[in-house]
């Protein structure tokens, strides 16, 4: 399982890619995370995470067409793979399972 272990930041990036499905490229992912988490993120960190996710096979990428807003530069579009989706679901299930196991008295 070591190969598919997801770090916290990687999980966030993967979720952001899922949210922006169809338009998930570096800058978009940065924007998404900054909006959702309300914290500033470095582009380098995002790209590193995206590369690592791609190496793990959790996302795949392809070059998108050039657009005017970027000075005519093309974007690399990321897409969550089936494996990536399963990884996210597993994490969520694990969290839920743990939540369910918290005894009520813990909150008193």
């Amino acid at each position, binding site marked *: 399982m070591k190969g598919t272990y997801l770090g916290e930041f990687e999980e966030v990036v993967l979720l952001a890619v899922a949210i922006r499905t169809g338009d998930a*490229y*570096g*800058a978009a992912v*940065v*924007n998404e995370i900054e909006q959702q988490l309300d914290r*500033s993120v*470095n*582009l*380098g*960190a995002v*790209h*590193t995470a995206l*590369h690592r996710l791609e190496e793990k096979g959790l996302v795949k*990428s392809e*070059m998108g067409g050039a657009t005017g*807003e*970027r*000075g005519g*530069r*093309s*974007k*690399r579009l990321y897409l969550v793979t089936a494996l990536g989706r399963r990884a996210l679901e597993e994490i969520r299930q694990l969290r839920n399972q743990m939540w369910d196991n918290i005894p009520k008295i813990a909150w008193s």
Partner: protein
Amino acid sequence: MNRSKPKHEMPPRWATLLLKSVCPARLANELEGDLHELFEQRVKTLGLRRARWRYIKDVSSLMRPSLMKSKPSQYPNPSHTDMLQNYIKIAFRNLVKNRTYSAINIVGLSVGMTTAILIGLWMWDELSFNKYHQHYDRIARVMQHQTYNGNTSTTPATPLPMRAALQNEHAAEFTHMASSSRTEDHILAVGDKKISRKGNWVEPDFPTMMSLRIVKGTAAGLDNPTSALLSESVAEALFGDQDPINQTMKVDNKNYFKVTGIYEDLPNNTEFKDVSFLLPWKYFLQEKPWVKRSENNWGNNSFLLLVQLAPNTGFDQVSAKIEKIKARHAKEEARFDPKAFLHPMNRWHLYSEWENGVPVRGRIQFVWLFGIIGAFVLLLACINFMNLSTARSQKRAKEVGVRKAVGSLRSQLIAQFYTESILVAVFAFLLALILVQLFLPWFNQVADKQIAFPWTDGRSWLFGLGFTLVTGLLAGSYPALYLSAFRPVKVLKAAGSSLRLQAGRYATLPRQTLVIVQFTVSITLVIGTLVVLRQIQYAKDRPVGFDRAGLLSVAMNTPDLRKDSDALARDLFQTGAVVNMTKSSSPTSEVWSRDASFNWEGKDPNQLGDLGTVGITHEYGQTVNWHIKQGRDFSKEYATDSLGMVLNESAVKFMGLKEPVGARVQWNGEKYTVVGVIGDVVTGSPFMPIEPTVFMLREDWASFIHIRLNAAVSTRDAIAKLETVFKKHNPGSPFEYKFASDEYDYKFRAEERIGQLSSTFASLAIIISCLGLFGLASFLAEQRQKEIGIRKVLGASVAHLWQMLSRDFLVLVLISCVVAAPIAYYLMHDWLEQYSYRTALSWWIFAAAILGALVITLLTVSYQAIKSALLNPVKSLHNE
């Protein structure tokens, strides 16, 4: 910049440039896009300053190695290892496409490599001689220079008192000392088993000094005068599977020795390789009267003296101290100016020749000579490769042009060509390994070696691989550097013919030079070989002075043979296989002893009466069939002959006798009369002058029986008959005999070995050179096919075309001849100098070699020339 364009805010330019300089091109586009997009957004939301600040932070966060080096996905950026596969594939295709050239290249190179490997193995064996002994760098033998009649001779034989003197006066310089006898044949017997082997009488320190590896028993046994050490092979031959330790064996049918130790056989590349058993020195001293007598005799130089140096001294230091030891102790020997010195073991094999007391080139010259020849033969093969590749370069010029136009770098083209040449070298190396394996037995026999290819030694593989790589690089360097330098525009625009024009006449110059080098080397080798063979033949044709056919000798190795010689003679004659029989103290073509105390009338008082001495019986002259020049042979009719002498012609010349017959000679307190003079009999080396020798009737010195076989009886029958007789009279030893002709032929072994090796190398050189010439000729003929076609259409005859195509090569070979002849003359003149009986360097040897080279060249080139001259011009002209 920002101020001049306030409405359109820009990110910091230097950060963008920094990113571009570090980032791989394929990533730059998308990263810049992201950066730019975020910057634009942030200018709006955060303001220009914060946006620029974030921009810089983002750029620096992108500068991480994991991002910058990550794998390409879109644009391939092949590394050198990726291209290797392609290089090998293309190289293979090229090899298969040009089968003839590839075959010529691979075969030529592998022959060159085989030669180089064999010579390399041989050199290694020579250079590692005696290294089997652990202390080989501390051991020396004591040698002496002595001067007789103005000639200084150098010998490892020392007198016995030398050892005692060194022990008494210089004990501190040595850790060990061991005297040894010479290596001689002895008969070893256990029960019915009798074998004849070579061995030495040695002092107890010998096994320790030589670091003999004891397999069984102990090395200490030699302290005891009745113990012996055997080598493993002798132990096995004598005792088979039995445990040899503490068994008794009989030596020379006389003395019994107990085996106390077995040592590992000494390998072939050691000085003492023939020594297969060791007998105790003490016994030698006690039981052999002549040895006992020599104990205080400084005049009898008959023993080896080995020493091991103490750690704090050097050979030269000790040599200087012991130089005068003999002159000091023995006043009567001082007139020979004896000088003792140490000869270190690591120089025994390769540096053991002196001339007039000065070291001269020894065997090391052969190591150098063959090393140079090997390097040259390899060079010839490499030259072939270069020449064929450059000649074909015009064909591949277009390929280079296209590759460059498509985007190949020069370095990639160089790599491509090197791959090709290294691939050929690897193939050639594999083939060479097979050839080495095939030819090693033959080579060992010719070179008298027991070399095995070190298959299991990692170093040899490393060496072989490095060697292949170097050969590949060497052979491929010229084409790789030459071809890759072509300008794509020129080669693509130019047609084949104009390309040739562009290349100009100088393009062929290096190629021609290489051909000249090749043939110069080959012709020099051929001339050298012819001279060596001629010299051997010349010495073989030398009048021998006696009749070798059907003459054999038996060593008188046990006392049994001396007991009743009349009975032995009677039995031998009775077989009918023997015509004549005699005894002597030396083999027929050797003189084993000499004495310096002869005196005669008219002798110059300063001259030393130094003559070879041979003791014979009355029948000797008839048996060996020597030629009486003056006077008569010994005869039983003259009782005075017991004080008679027969001289050889060299002795007459040496003594300066005008009237040799009847001359008086004093020796050993007796007055002898010369009764006859015989024609010189070749003794010792057939390349050297004949030793002045006197023959005397001394049956008591005899150590050989010579027998002239009856020519009417077949040799095999005769030997069988002799064997029964000898078995009867000499029951203690196996019947062993030597034919005089074999013994005589043995003298030519060293020279014949050189002759055989140099003929092999010379033929290889010629074959390789011709192989290259063949390839070159066929290529050039192919290239000029159209020209030949047009010439034929215009009326040129086949003879004319043949002449045109061959002339260029003949000129090259002629130039090589002109260069090779003086080189060969100089080298071979030098070589012949070492023989005093030598052939002249006659002009016909050079003429024959040059003529041969021209004929072979013509044959090689003509095949291609005539083939293309005979081609129907329609065929060569119909396309285009």
